[in-house]
């Protein structure tokens, strides 16, 4: 069976680059960039680059037929679609703004501006299932 594969030098070069990039990842975590998200974006970009190197050479995608490459890329693209839709939902619920636990919040009637008459404790609905958007548990 004739199968194209990387040379010994290719494997070692990829390994050395991976270790160097690990060092770079640790270094940039120590450096204070203007914004916090920049450190994260940089670290994730380096990790993605390392993943591509491993996939192309250690996992031999570079040498494979088109169908295997398509499957590999489709898997990653699909994961991004799934994650994007999930995160789009969570990030638009306003949870970030509702950071403070809503305990001891004074209840005010919208129409009168007065506190509503007290309900008997037994009729109070359990915490978390009341009006308004769902709150994260604190």
């Amino acid at each position, binding site marked *: *069976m004739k*199968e194209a594969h990387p040379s010994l030098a290719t494997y070692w070069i990829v390994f050395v680059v*991976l270790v160097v990039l*690990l060092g770079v990842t*640790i270094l940039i975590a120590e450096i204070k960039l203007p914004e916090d998200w920049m450190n994260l974006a940089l670290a994730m970009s380096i990790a993605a680059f390392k993943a591509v190197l491993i996939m192309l050479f250690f*996992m031999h995608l570079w040498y*494979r037929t088109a169908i295997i490459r398509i499957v590999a890329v489709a898997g990653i693209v*699909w994961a991004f679609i799934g*994650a994007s839709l999930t995160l789009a939902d969570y990030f638009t619920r306003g949870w970030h703004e509702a950071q403070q636990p809503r305990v001891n919040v004074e209840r005010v009637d919208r129409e009168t501006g007065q506190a509503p008459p007290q309900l008997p404790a037994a009729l109070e609905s359990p915490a978390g299932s009341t009006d308004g958007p769902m709150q994260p548990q604190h």
Partner: protein
Amino acid sequence: MNAHVAHHFDNAEQQFVTANLGMWLFLVTEVMFFSGLFAVYTIYRYLYPEAFHEGSRHLDLVLGTINTTVLLLSSLTVALSVRAAQLNRQKQLVWLLVATIALGTVFLVIKAVEYSHKFEEGLVPGSGFQLRHPYDEAFADSSRARHVELFFAVYFAMTGFHALHMVIGLGIFITVLVLAIRGTFHSEYYTPVEVTGLYWHFVDIVWIFLFPLLYLVA
């Protein structure tokens, strides 16, 4: 027709590519599995950035860095073992597989040491969770400590599932090693070495993302 080619394949090459395609399809399902965990991480880090920073300070960066290097090295030995099989170097193949299994074991032992430290320090989510370090003062009040607890829940879930994959990978590699010692593999047939290698590299890639996300929260 060679003995190792099943009757429903035209030739060894078609059989090899088919096995590869199957393994990649399985890895796609694994990507789906881990992307769920990464989504959980993203949501909670977005909600409680300070707590994630605080939790990350309790992780051992030295052990984490050593483990990352060990895993990268094991990926190299796996890649080289596939090459050894392709070149009919039986002895080299066996030793590279032994090295891979040894490196994988070193990773799990270091992980176990890290876990035991977390248990001793009371950082395992649950009723016993507590923040004891002097620099934990700002997080002493219970609701903020709960957010750090969330970080550790995510930490144990992600590294735990990663370690589980390592254990499974080691089990498969021990099987491959036995086959290699029996002389099953040669330049015409080394599919199990290749596809097990694909799985191992995938687990390595997962760790490459986990390491900065857990140990290096700036």
